């Protein structure tokens, strides 16, 4: 049987084949070729699309260029969600490659945050990690780390594109500490998770939820959904209405939540769970 660290590896090295096309209304000097790229599921759009930008800038005039943003089938893509989550949430059951439209104008101020530099991503990433550790260990682990340790986490993520084992090691050497917990407690204090719904106005659901029930039972993914979004759980007699997707897979509902949190969390230490309508066929 394969080892649990292979799960971490698979998760880390996940890539989504993507085709970037320039939005039809953008003014170009000559026709813009689509740009193909494998996007790391773990990373953030604005962190890995430098070359997409470079590619399209070649055919555009400098004065026509504002901040780059992306949409998929009319939905603006939030750069501050991990790429894997965006794909699972919006494009799970569509054909590959994932077709993303690139815009350089009309930035949708209502939907998206600006991302002037990588330091904004870093700040967002680190604040997520800190929030997650506040839930897991009352911030004890993250506060014990040194500045350089924080940097190591960020560098690990930043270099996820390099597809290198060293970066995986570098990141996990540090992230491992964030995944420890006292045995007698059987898990984290609370599981850092977010549940995303496509068909809701709320961006996501987040609640305090412990990995172990007060009577000592292990909480599962099913227990979590029952508590925070019971609709997602299929009734015995009905066919499945929703898919519960994490990293492009649907874990069984009896999967222990603590294990999921340790193995299927994003580098920001959150378990990002997408609940999407099941394909109707």
């Amino acid at each position, binding site marked *: 049987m394969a080892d649990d660290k292979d799960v971490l590896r698979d998760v880390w090295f996940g890539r989504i084949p993507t085709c970037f096309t320039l939005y039809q209304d953008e003014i170009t000097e000559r026709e813009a070729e689509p740009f193909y*790229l494998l996007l790391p599921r773990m990373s953030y759009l604005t962190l890995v699309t430098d070359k997409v930008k470079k590619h399209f800038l070649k055919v555009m005039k400098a004065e026509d260029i504002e901040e780059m943003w992306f949409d998929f089938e009319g939905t603006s893509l939030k750069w501050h969600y991990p790429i894997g989550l965006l794909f699972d949430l919006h494009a799970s059951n569509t054909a590959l490659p994932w077709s993303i439209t690139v815009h350089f104008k009309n930035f949708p101020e209502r939907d998206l945050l600006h991302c002037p530099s990588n330091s904004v991503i870093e700040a967002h990433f680190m604040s997520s990690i800190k929030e997650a550790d506040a839930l897991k260990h009352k911030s004890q682990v993250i506060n014990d780390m040194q500045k350089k340790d924080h940097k190591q986490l960020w560098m690990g993520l930043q270099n996820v594109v390099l597809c290198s084992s060293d970066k995986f090691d570098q990141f996990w050497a540090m992230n491992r500490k964030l995944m420890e917990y006292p045995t007698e407690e059987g898990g984290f204090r609370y599981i850092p998770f977010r549940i995303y719904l496509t068909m809701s106005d709320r961006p996501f659901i987040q609640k305090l939820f412990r990995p172990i029930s007060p009577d000592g039972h292990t909480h599962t993914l099913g227990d979590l959904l029952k508590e925070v979004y019971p609709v997602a759980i299929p009734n015995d007699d009905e066919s499945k209405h929703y898919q519960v997707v994490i990293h492009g897979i649907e874990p069984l509902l009896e999967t222990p939540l603590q294990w999921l949190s340790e193995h299927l969390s994003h580098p920001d230490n959150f378990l990002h769970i997408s609940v999407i309508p099941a394909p109707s066929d």
Partner: protein
Amino acid sequence: MSVSLLWAVDVYGRVYSLSTGGQQWEQCQDAVLEFKRVTAVQQCCWGIACDHHIYLNVHSSDVPIRYQEETYENQRWNPKDNFSDHLLPSDRWHWSDITGLEHQPLDSFLLPSTNWEWEGDWYIDENFGGEPTEKGGWTYALDFPATYIKDKKWNSCVRRRRWIRYRRYKATDTWAKIPSEGHSGPLPDPFNDISCGGWEISEEPRGRLSLWAVSLQGKVWFREGIHHHSPEGEGWEEVSLPGEVVQISCGPGDLVWAVLWEGQLIVREGITRDCPQGLCWVVVDSPNPEAGAIHVAVGDNVVWAVTKDNKVWFRRGINSHNPCGSGWIGMVGEMVMVNVGLNDQVWGISCVDRAVYFRQGVTSSELSGKAWKAVNVPRDGDIRSHSSASISKGGPQRAVLEVGTCPSSPPPEPPPIDPDVPKPRIPKVTSDSFISEMLSDRQVKQEAATTASPSIPEEEVWSNVDLEETQTHLAVGLSSVATYTLCQGEPYGADEHPLWAWVSGGGCGVNFWTLLSLPALASSVQSMSLSISPAQTAAWRKQIFEQLSERSKREMDHFKHYEQSVWVKKGAMQWWRDWKPHKWVDVRFALEQFSGPEGNQDGILFLYYNFNEEKKYLHAFINEVTILVPVLNDSKHTFAIYTAERTKQRWPIRLAAATELALLSVSCCDSRGIQGPPSKQAIWSVTCKGDIFVCEPSPSLEACPYPTPCDQMFWRQVGGHLRLVECNSLGVVWGVGYDHTAWVYTGYGGGFFQDNIFTQTDVKCVYIYENQRWNPVTGYTNRGLPTDRYMWSDATGLQECTKANAKPPSPHWTWVADWTIDYGISGGTDREGWQYAADFPRSYHGHKTLKDFVRRRRWARKCKLTTTGPWQEVPPIPLSDVTIVLCGAQSSVEPIPLWAISNKGDVLCRLGVTLLTPAGTSWLHVGTDQPFKSISIGGANQVWAIARDGSAFYRGSVSSESPAGDCWYHIPCPERQKLQQVSVGRTSVYTVDQNGNLWFRQGLTPSYPQGSSWEHICNNVRKVSVGPLDQVWIIADKVQGSHSLSCGTVCHRLGVQPMEPKGQSWDYGIGGGWDHITVRGNSIEAPRVRMPSLTPSLTSSLTDPLRPPPPRSLLPVMITEMENGNAVRC
């Protein structure tokens, strides 16, 4: 981390130890007696048994404690008897010590105690200052006392020879009784407390320890003469006191505190290297005037105390200048006692549940730690007793005693542990709790006599009870104790936890970083990989694996071709600019990487700078980079980039950047398609910064006549920090750190989890010099002449180095101790560490003469590096050299011969080294008559070694059947040279001497493997490594005319062929700044090139047309290197 022990005594007087690698408390089986207290250091544990005698338990080691006794046999020549025992009346004794003053016949040598045994009989030493003597070992002189020579001359009137015999300490892993003898007969008073420490006070003699003991009457005794060759010490010396002492504690350094009967504390002052027992006491008040102190524990820089109300206190402001500290801070928790172990880690026994507690979070910056954490570990006895009632046979000795007395006893009461219930008397074995209780009781009773506590009269309690009780207890026999033991035994159960009386962490090498390696503690902070083990086979887990692999297929496998593109990484760095004045300037950089359709990566590094307002750039093709070397710099993370061209120029691109080195390293490896662990054939090298590099040898590296030029070799870094590394072609790799720790390579790559990447630490010293000049009025002062060097400087005197401004070698290192005087510097020192000379810079000596006008002394400060790498420690013996047998690529030798030299100079042979267990199992000590320093095992088990006196030895009859061989053959040195290092290839033997000469051993034949003579090859060599193809690589060292230290350059001997093992000339590779290289893994034979038209001699004069001929001597290279500076050392 090496395995080390935490010792503890339970309330029944049983001694247990918990190994940092173990899972449970192991009862000390040898302890026939009950013990009251133990005090442990790394190499041994001292204890006071219930008979109030002191016992010593020296841990066994692969290297035995042996002591060499010597005596001299003297003879004089006369015409009648020739040389004979008939000496002149004015002569020395026939048998004497080296000076001739002491009469020392062979039978006057007695074993110091019954704990010693003789290793063999007396024999004659035939080694005379590194030179073999004639049979019989006689050395000749004109007269006593005179200079001896090994050859007999016409005027040799006297002769002498040296006899040696070894005695060995045999009482290891057992409790050996130490007689209570003072200077004048037996001590009047039995012992009550004991504390061992002081090993950091002085390095000489090796293994020196301070042992302090307190008698029942409150006197303090100091044990003299404990060191490595005398583990038991020599005798007790009484230390005068301002009062009666109850308990004493001694730290690893010069900190000694004791508790007085009245509740104050006293601090020993004036403890120095020359006076380890100190000069005087200073009184410090108890933390709480209401409740006096009953217990104190000291470490390197900390003092903890416990008062009668069981409160724990931490002393603020302790440092080497102020052993008394400045104030008390109350701590949470109530303890019976506390103990400070290694690294100032704190252990305690709670007065609530009598469990052993560990103070969590003690670091050098936060010495008081954060919280108490219980060490909940089962005892070995728990399981045994629980399993069956028939403990009499299988159980420990204690159990045998129990059975007779108590099978019919009524169900015993469980030992009371509830603190609220008045405590019944616990047996007096645990005098600590007893005394503390007595002390607290006494006060209570003085104030209010209504207490229900024992009705023993107060006077009696203090002075005699312990003793009396013990005597009763002994007189009554073991029944009382045994009853208790059984009481404990039967309800043992799973819930029953041990009640501890005493704990000693002085030998327990836990620190903040390695804390988790103590399973007892690790279990409380479990890592994730352990937490999932029960769920290995669950359906949900299987589902996740399947879906993830489906996902990879779906999303990635068909789209691999997307990844052909250009990446640009931009940022800022600092660059050591190319023109004068050289300095760090801010530059922008861009790393452009592109990948071809076959997935091969390449890239270019651009550096954009301004030159006279003009924008310029510098670039390097990533696939031309041969190495990225971290450079020593005390404030920046700097590195140098070399290409083959820049290696020739000795002028790398130097950059300073915090994180880009890792990125560039990955790019370089990617562009060359190198990934995964180094191959078994890899060439390993180490820079003077301790960084480890490997190079994959190409098949043509050892080709003749056209080898790959060695400046084109690509080196990549491997994690870790070492001083030297050795390997062979089976993939066994060992390293030795600066602190002499031995490390074995575990196989790199793949994971960060417990299997591959480990924490590695190393410790070294930074040295600065204090310089003074003499003037007639004030003597030596720190006011020099205007032309003098800095009064605080580096070794050369050119650089000012003060205690305040000296920094650790790089930002990776941190200080771990304060400045101390270094007495170990060559040339010797006086008692204050001064060395004298006529003027700066001259040769220094350790005593003042009339001609000396200047003096200096060296200060050392330890710093520590914590890093990670694929290395695992091989405890416990520190090494100075290691060598692994040479073999061909295909051969499979098992076990693999591996030899080493310990840092004390012992020759060791490792047993059980196989491909699966490259660390081996244990050391076999190979006896020598003197300490050794270098060793090498070549093809066909040829073992050569160099002794510290510079002589060479060949080990006879080493084979797979007899892995340690049978005897040493002394090989004379080259004329007037002391050898330094040896490397043995398939057949070649090369040595380097202390003056940097490289020597080749002539005349080696299978029937006469010792060879006939040394042939000089070249000079300016620091290290040599001879490989399985007899290829020769060296680290070339400084040359004449160089005015400062220059580090080494990797050089390759060209033209080495079977018929020409000495080769022709040198090819120069990466450098300077290299300290070590090993080519002993490279057994890749070059494809044979047949050149029938050329005779070998012509071949050798041919050079590659694309390459200029290599310089004839080392000089030109070294000079250019001096101009441009070393690669590694700025």
